[in-house]
Structure formats: C-alpha cells, structure tokens
C-alpha cells in the first residue's frame, strides 16, 4: 500500500476516531490552514475560474480597441493597449486556465489513484496561497502603470517578480501532483492502470517542471535587464512582452492541450457508458503528444520571440508529427463513441470539441510551414508571403494562442462539469453547461480565425502593431471581438455554474458514475477519501467490481 509521508493537517473524522472527540474547525482554519487536497483543489478551481473571466473581459476590451488602431477610442495610447492585451494574456494562462487544471488535478488525482491525500499537502496549500497573492500583485502592478509596457520602472520590476512567483508557485503545485501519481498510488494501481486524466495531469506536470524553469530564468534575466539596463539589442520593453512568447507560441502552448485530452478520454468513457478499450495506447499517445509539445520547443530554444519558423527543421517535423498523437487519442477513444451509448452531456461535448479544436489548432499552426498552403493563401490574398517566416511577428501566432486558450477553456469546462458533483456535492447545471460549451467553441473558432486571417494580411501583433487602415483587417478585428465576447460569455456561465454548485443550490443527486476509483467515494469524499484503501487489478476497477457481482 502506498502512503504519503505527511498526512493532511485537517482530518477531523480520523481525529475523532483516535481520541473520541471531533476536532472543531472554523471557516478560517478550514480554508486558510487546510492541507486537504479537496479544499485546495476547490480554491484553485474557484480562483482560476474567476481570473479566467477577468482575463477574458480584459482581452475583450483590448480586442475592441484593436479593430481600429488609429482611433484609440478606449485607451490613450499604444502602451496602454499593450498593457491591457498583455494582462489578458498573462492572466488567462497563468491566472486562469493553468490554475483550473492544477485545481482539478489536486482534487481528482488522489481519488483516481486511491490515495488518502495529495503528496506534500502543506506544500500544495502553500503553493496555492503564494500563487494567489502573486496573481493579485500582478494585477496590481498593471493598475499602477507597471507591467511590460508600463511607465514606472519599479512597478515593471514588480510585474516581473509577481509573474516569477506565479510560475514558481505553479511549479510547486505540479511537483505535488506528479509526486502523488508517481509515489502515492494504491496497491495494484500501476502507472499503466491510472486513468487517462491522471496520466495527462502527470504529463502536464512533468512538462511544466521542465518548461517553467526556463521561463523563470528568462524572468531573472528580465529583472537584471530592467534593474541594470543591459542587453542593448534586446532590452526594450517589447522584449518583456515577448518573454511570454516562449510559453504562448506553438508548439509550447500545446502544453495546455495535454490535460484536455485526458479529461476528454475520461469523459468519453463515462458518458458513453463504455470504458475506453485501448487504455494503454491512449496513455502512450498522450505521452507522445506531451513530448512533442515540449521537445520541439526545447530544440528550437531561443531566448525571445519564438515563432513558428519554417527554417527550423525540428520544429517543422514536430508540428507535423504532433497531429498524430492527437488523432490517435481521439480515434482510440472514439471506439467507445461508436459502440457505446453516448449521451449529450456537457463533459462529453466539451471534451470532444476541445479535442477536435486541439487537432484543428495543430493543423492551422502547420499551415504556416507548409509552402503549398502558403502559396495557395498567397494566390488567394494577392499578398507575397511565400517565405513562411513572414508570418513571424504577425497576429498569426496570436490566433494559435487564442485557439489554444479556447481549447483549454473547453477542457476546464469538461473537467468542472464531469467531476462537479464529486467536487462540491452538487452537480453544475448541465443545460447551462451545454450553452457554455457552445459559446466557448464558437468563441475559440472566431477569436482564432480573426487573428490567423489578419496575420495572413500582414497585420503585426502587439506591441509592434500601430495601424490597420485596411478594411479587411477591421473585419478580422470584428470577428476576433465576437470570438472573445463569446468566450467571455462562456466564462460568465462557467463561474455562475460553479457558484451555484458551491452554494449547494443545484442538483444534489450524482448525475453519472464511472469505472475509475473516484466514483467509489462519497461526493464530496470524506477525509481520507476511502473508508479502506482500495486494491485494484485493472484500469477500470469499478467495472471489474460490477462484473464480479454479476458473476456471483
């Protein structure tokens, strides 16, 4: 039986069993002092969803301004616009979507591997609170004219420190998650038997632990750059903006797609009533996809301004190959769709659309490096873009990023709805969820399409963009605005649904059940998660249990 070294601080039921008296907990020590992975997971999910909404609203405002760059109807100048755009980007990734996935993993992974708690529970709690404080400081740094395009040097340094703390805190949380999967599994739960979601969270964590320190190192350099003003050729504030390109450009940004695939596979298994048959090949495909996301970026390592570059052979090969594991995962899991009885539920719809849009994003990114496609677009638009690198610096990469953010949001919606009842004891409203999925999917396509199309018409990305006199660019700008608005709407609906479930005003009946271990516990699980440590012999222990009961 696997054990974690440190038990959660707050396990009232166990304490009661030991000394016969329940340990009273108040809201303050139950939340702020809790090492319970369920409380920490809820905090990550709730704060992440709220930050996602804020980020999308800020992105919407900057997208509206981008329709006509010469007018400056909302902001005073380009610096203010760059600030808002940058805030939306930073917050959506490290303040919103990644924290939601960290929260889902913190809550679900111990349940899926049969562990009574997450590894290093106090560390997991500290990671959340340090991230939370740093995220607030990051927003504050923008408000006081700091940030990458800000006018006050001290507050720009504050932005660097806040972003660095967010990155380190997330890395810290990822260590807790990965360690739980690697070392705290219950008896019989080998790595090849862990559910696809847990496996994807492991891949997500390990890639994060390889990639995030690179960003942290870049932030150290950025701090020195700001403080001492060196790097004469790269020291501009634009360089600060470009730091985030390392994690928001393809293929590095595919990192966000890893848990989306895992959640989609788990959702397919549950909502078709047929656990996925090709479990191990799916795990392998998700692993390969994760390696592609990191590996290609690693080989194309450059300090700043990483873009889809046609002259980087490794990157081109990786961008081509990255579609294969996505296709394999969806196709193998699709067997359950064909032979099972799919129900139109929010997790299934969000998971499937997330997976398909991930595939589409990989395909669009590929378009930048395939000459025939470039030639075709060249003919279509009349613009000379034969050299694929001409897309560098345009909004093309913004489009890829926008699509990946949408894919991430769909994955988050799928996870929150799939395990919502397990998390809060009340299931999020499914019809409202379907509306959320529609808005998110539509928004993803439009936000991405608007930016990608503008890139093909040579629209420069911020902070370089300063004018767009062409009518066609105003049309692509409007398309982008509609896209972000839809995503913001889905963010509002997601937050409303989470609030409803957390307040206990929604459906209290467990809406569905699955074949993996988390469905063997109460909703929400009691302290310690399982009355007895389960012993498993396959990837679908509850399906085995049902079969055993059928035999007997």
């Amino acid at each position, binding site marked *: 039986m696997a054990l974690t*070294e440190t038990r959660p601080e707050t396990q009232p039921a166990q304490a009661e069993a030991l000394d016969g008296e329940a340990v009273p907990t108040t809201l303050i020590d139950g939340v702020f002092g809790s090492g319970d992975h369920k409380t920490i997971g809820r905090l990550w999910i709730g704060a992440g969803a709220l930050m996602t909404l804020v980020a999308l609203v800020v992105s919407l405002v900057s997208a509206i301004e981008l329709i006509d760059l010469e007018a400056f109807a909302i902001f005073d100048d380009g610096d203010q616009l760059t600030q808002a755009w940058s805030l939306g980007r930073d917050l959506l990734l490290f303040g919103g979507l990644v924290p939601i996935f960290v929260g889902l993993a913190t809550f679900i992974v111990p349940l899926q591997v049969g562990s009574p708690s997450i590894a*290093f529970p106090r560390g997991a709690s500290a990671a959340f609170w340090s991230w939370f404080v740093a995220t607030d400081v990051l927003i504050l740094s923008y408000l006081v004219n700091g940030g990458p395009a800000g006018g006050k040097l001290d507050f720009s340094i504050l932005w660097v420190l806040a972003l660095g703390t967010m990155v380190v805190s997330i890395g810290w949380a990822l260590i807790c998650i990965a360690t739980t999967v690697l070392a705290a599994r219950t008896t019989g739960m080998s790595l090849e038997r862990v559910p696809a979601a847990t496996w994807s969270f492991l891949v997500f964590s390990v890639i994060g632990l390889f990639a995030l320190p690179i960003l942290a190192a870049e932030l150290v350099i950025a701090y020195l750059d700001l403080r001492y003003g060196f790097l004469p050729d790269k020291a501009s504030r634009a360089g600060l903006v470009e730091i985030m390109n390392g994690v928001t450009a393809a293929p590095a940004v595919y990192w966000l797609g890893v848990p989306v695939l895992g959640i989609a596979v788990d959702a397919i298994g549950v909502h078709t009533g047929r656990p996925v048959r090709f479990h191990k090949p799916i795990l392998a495909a998700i692993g390969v996809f994760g390696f592609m996301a990191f590996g290609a970026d690693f080989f194309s390592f450059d300090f700043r301004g990483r873009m889809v570059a046609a002259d980087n052979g490794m990157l081109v090969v990786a961008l081509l190959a990255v579609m294969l594991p996505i296709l394999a995962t969806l196709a193998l899991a699709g067997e359950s769709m064909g032979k099972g009885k799919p129900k139109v539920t929010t997790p299934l719809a969000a998971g499937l659309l997330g997976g398909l849009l991930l595939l589409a994003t990989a395909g669009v990114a590929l378009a930048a490096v395939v000459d025939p496609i470039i030639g075709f677009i060249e003919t279509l638009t009349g613009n000379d873009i034969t050299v694929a690198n001409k897309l560098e610096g345009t909004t093309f990469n913004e489009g890829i990023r926008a699509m990946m953010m949408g894919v991430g949001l769909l994955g988050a919606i799928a996870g929150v709805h799939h395990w919502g009842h397990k998390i809060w004891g009340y299931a999020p409203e499914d019809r409202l969820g379907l509306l959320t999925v529609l808005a998110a999917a539509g928004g993803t396509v439009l936000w991405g399409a608007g930016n990608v199309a503008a890139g093909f018409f040579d629209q420069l990305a911020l902070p370089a963009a300063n004018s767009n006199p062409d009518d066609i660019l105003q049309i692509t700008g409007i398309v982008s605005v509609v896209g972000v608005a839809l995503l913001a709407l889905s963010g509002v609906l997601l937050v409303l649904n989470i609030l409803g479930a957390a307040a206990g005003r929604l459906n209290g009946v467990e809406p569905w059940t699955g074949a993996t271990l988390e469905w063997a516990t109460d909703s929400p699980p009691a302290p310690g998660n399982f009355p007895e440590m389960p012993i498993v*012999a396959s990837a679908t222990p509850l399906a085995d249990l049902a079969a055993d*009961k059928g035999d007997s």
Partner: protein
Amino acid sequence: MTDITVYRKIPDNVAAPTPARPRVLLIGTALACISAIMGLGSLVAFYAAVRQDVIQSGETWLPSGVTIPLTQPNMMMLTLWFSILIMVWATYSLGVDDRSNMHIALGLIVLMGFGYIAQTMFLLEIMNLGAASDSRASLIYAVIGAHVVYMAIAMLFVAFMGIRTLGGDYSARDREGIYAAAMFWYVGVFLYMIVWLAIYITK
C-alpha cells in the same frame, strides 16, 4: 458511493502485487532537482549566448581590471567533490544505524556548504566586479547567485533531515529523507561543475 469491499477479493490465479514503497519525498525531490537543473541550465545558456555575442562584436567578455583567479573556484570544486564522499559516509552510516557517525557526516556537509558560500563571497570580492558596475557583472552575479541560493537550500534540507533523523523519523529501515537530501546535494555539486566550467574556467 459504491461498495468496494467486494472488489478487494483478488482471484487466486493473480499474483499479489508488490507493495509500493513510500518514496514520496525522494520523488518530489527528484522533480525539484529537474526544475533546478532546467532553471540554472537556462541561465547558463543565456550567459553563454550573451558572452558569445560580446566576443563576436570584438570586445573582451570580462571588463578591464576584472580577473577571475582559479585558486578559489578549484578549491570549491574540491570541497564539493569531497562532500560527496562525506555524504556517502552519512548514508552508509544510517544504513547500519550508526547515527553518531551519520550526524558527524551531515554536520561536515553543512560546514562544507558554509565553506563554499564563504569562498564564493571572497572570490566575488577579489574579482573586483561590482554587481551593478557592468551589465556583464550582473549576469555573472545572477548565475553564481542562483547556485549559491540552491546550495543554501541544500544545506537547510540536509540539516532538517538530520534533525528529523535525530527525532527518530529515519533509520536503517527507512532512509528516504537522508537519501532525498543526498540527491539534492549531489545535484548541487553537478550544477557547480557547470558554473565552474562556464564562468570560472571559460571566463
């Protein structure tokens, strides 16, 4: 909630799985080491890239008047290599439940860590390189400083695990904490080898 007690019955023809060993701290430390290697590696990579740019532009890398003597870096290298042997002594002693020897060894490790930090401070002093005096200086300070911070954390880790062993947490039957601290220390020595080559030797 599903009753899982029935499921605990494993068919007779299935071999009992090997019980998993609790290696939470060891694996968590390994993951932290990976991150540290990536972080410091990135800093060194950036240092090397900037250095190459400067040299290709016809300038010298180190500002005039700055020298990097080799005595101190080499002594630090020898100290840290020697600390590996001491760490092996500590883990071996724990393996045979010889706690006195283990604590002496861990104390020496921490002492060597202090020696390394003191030597680094002295080296920076005699290099005549003010942190804010030059852009290149701040980069050198960043790389060296990152490693000093790592070693300080490693010293705290070793000391903390030593105290926990004193409290009875670790013994010959469970050496995980000391092994984790040892791994963290070894990675610190490995990282110093990179810093030593990139900054002190290559100059």
